[in-house]
């Protein structure tokens, strides 16, 4: 019965299985690093994967859009869980990665509600973050060989 079935995975079979598992872990670790890099620096994931033109376009366009949002008196929203829309806007703002932390550290993104361009600034900041998250997903797809 079950006991009589010969074990097709001998010593070398087990070794192959261990190697395959290690390779999968390494690959998943690399994927996580790739996604983190792509989030932190817009376009870094594509540059890592050798897609220079795309990476450079993201590297210029997204931080520029974010900077324009700050220049237009947009606000970097706080993580306020009592107000769901503010919390969601904060997550979207954070999507841009390192530029968010640089702007916060330098004291930008206070937001001037009375400014005519306030809402435009918010739209620029939020959409820049969300577009960068799309770029991260695209880099992941490229790394997985789906594109």
């Amino acid at each position: 019965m079950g006991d009589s079935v010969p074990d097709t995975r001998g010593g070398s079979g087990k070794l192959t299985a261990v190697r395959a598992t290690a390779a999968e872990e390494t690959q998943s670790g690399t994927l996580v690093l790739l996604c983190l890099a792509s989030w932190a620096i817009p376009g870094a994931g594509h540059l890592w994967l050798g897609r220079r033109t795309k990476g450079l376009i993201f590297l210029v366009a997204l931080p520029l859009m974010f900077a324009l949002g700050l220049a237009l008196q947009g606000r970097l929203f706080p993580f306020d869980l009592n107000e769901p829309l503010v919390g969601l806007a904060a997550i979207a703002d954070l999507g841009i990665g390192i530029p968010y932390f640089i702007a916060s550290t330098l004291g930008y993104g206070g937001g001037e509600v009375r400014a005519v361009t306030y809402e435009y600034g918010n739209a620029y900041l939020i959409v820049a973050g969300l577009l960068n998250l799309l770029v991260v997903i695209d880099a992941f797809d490229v790394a997985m060989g789906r594109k």
Partner: protein
Amino acid sequence: MLLVIFAFFVSLVFAVIAKDDLREQVRFGGMMFGGFLASALVLGWLMYPFPL
């Protein structure tokens, strides 16, 4: 002007994500950019009769 710049950036990023060939990127991005501007104009005029 701010709307035009916004539409440009969004169209650029979407075109670069969605397409690989330069020609297709230009075509897709151009159509998206035009769509943004046209829809903004149409919606703006549709809202014109309504008071604030």
